[in-house]
């Protein structure tokens, strides 16, 4: 097949025997991708639920603020969800950075010409749609969760520090620049999920001619639903529909 150089000897049957299983597992790209997939699935489930919760803004301030109140009055739910999500995001980012490095090291000399044959734009751009989403997540938390990046953050129950999501969202999105940034982030989320929500199954070893086409359709549909559902909120505020 080729002229072999014995620079790196074959690993032999050693791998199955010694060393920490978890280390061995995570050390390979397959293990890192499994971590990406599980944490990405947590994120995927969250962004869907989060969008459905937020769409209640169209039902008026009472419903929206009552939803926020309910979350804050159920600490096990709120803090449980926050812990799982922060843990998942942290692991997702660590594995992503390692994979991005591994992949860029794997091709030190670039091609003069690259012409993709079948792959989607979304699949080839995960390595930058993801990191930008990371910055968006930080801004988003400072904006609507803590209020540190919100010029007029208000509370529905100041004593217990429970924010008023309806007023905060309307005030926040009234700034067209803020809305624009959210919309750009949602386009990136659409791209990231468009590929990610089917890719995660493949990473976990689930591919079957009977189900994979369906999974790919569901992933694509979910990504468009996220784009439309999430962008509807800043657009409705800018258009004065939600005020």
């Amino acid at each position: 097949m080729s002229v072999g150089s014995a620079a790196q000897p074959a690993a032999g049957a050693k791998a199955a025997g010694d060393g920490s299983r978890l280390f061995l597992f995570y050390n390979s790209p397959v293990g890192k991708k499994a971590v990406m997939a599980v944490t990405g699935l947590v994120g995927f489930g969250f962004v869907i639920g989060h969008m459905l919760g937020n769409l209640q803004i169209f039902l008026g301030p009472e419903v929206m603020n009552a939803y926020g109140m309910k979350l804050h009055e159920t600490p096990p739910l709120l803090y449980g969800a926050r812990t799982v999500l922060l843990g998942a995001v942290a692991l997702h980012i660590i594995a992503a950075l390692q994979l991005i490095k591994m992949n860029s090291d794997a091709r030190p000399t670039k091609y003069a010409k690259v012409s993709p044959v079948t792959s989607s734009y979304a699949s080839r751009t995960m390595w930058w749609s993801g990191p930008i989403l990371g910055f968006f997540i930080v801004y988003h938390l400072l904006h609507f969760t803590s209020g540190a990046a919100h010029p007029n953050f208000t509370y529905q129950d100041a004593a217990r520090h429970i924010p008023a999501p309806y007023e905060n969202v309307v005030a926040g999105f009234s700034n067209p620049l803020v809305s624009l940034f959210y919309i750009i982030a949602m386009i990136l989320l659409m791209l990231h999920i468009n590929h990610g929500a089917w890719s995660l199954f493949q990473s976990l070893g689930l591919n079957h001619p009977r189900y994979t086409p369906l999974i790919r359709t569901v992933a694509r549909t979910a990504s468009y639903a996220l784009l439309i559902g999430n962008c509807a909120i800043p657009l409705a505020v800018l258009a004065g529909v939600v005020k």
Partner: protein
Amino acid sequence: MKITLHVWRQKDRNAQGKLVRYECPNVSEHMSFLEMLDVLNEDLTTKGEDPVAFEHDCREGICGSCGIVINGVAHGPMPGTTVCQLHMRHFKDGDELYLEPWRAKAFPVMKDLIVDRGAFDRIIAAGGYISVPAGSAPDGNAIPVPKEDSDRAMDAAQCIGCGACVAACPNASASLFTSAKISHLGLLPQGQPERYERALNMVQQMTIEEFGACGNIGECEAVCPKRISIENIARMHRDYMNGAFSARPNAEAGSAG
């Protein structure tokens, strides 16, 4: 017809390479791509220049020696076709083509369009075997194999080890190749004894060789001359995870056997 080539020329492993422009004024549409390069090389030799080095052997699409990235596509524009089986009738008069070697850290360029694919050999050595009793040939049908399994194993076994999957992958991942080698043994009863250890060892070797990670992008499958499916990559992930968590180290294996 007239074809303009920009060919990657590199003296040896350590030299700086560059794209060099060549005109091929009399290309027949009946020529194979490699025959066009043969003619170019004859011209270069007559002029006393160094011919373009490229790998080839069978020229019938079965050995896996050849491989050139043509205008950014491994093995060129025809799906399911090695570059030796690609004919000039698929190009137009006046076409300008960029010819580059497979690009991956694990495949260092040796000269011009030839890369060292020893990393593939070492991945195979790490697990591409089964345990069979030596001696006389086993009875042909002693072990029944369901037709569907043997078909899928044969599909995976078609991999000729050309390396186009690595070349086409934006991450220079060797997952399609490695998964084909893992699958064609792992799908058959004869491959069961080492199934999970094989996946562990071959994936580990793939990691050591510094190939990239699979992003499930699918460019590999699209350029593979043998149309190996990425379903094999999912099988590799399954077997690897199974192996990493459930396979027992040899010392722990049961003593009752």
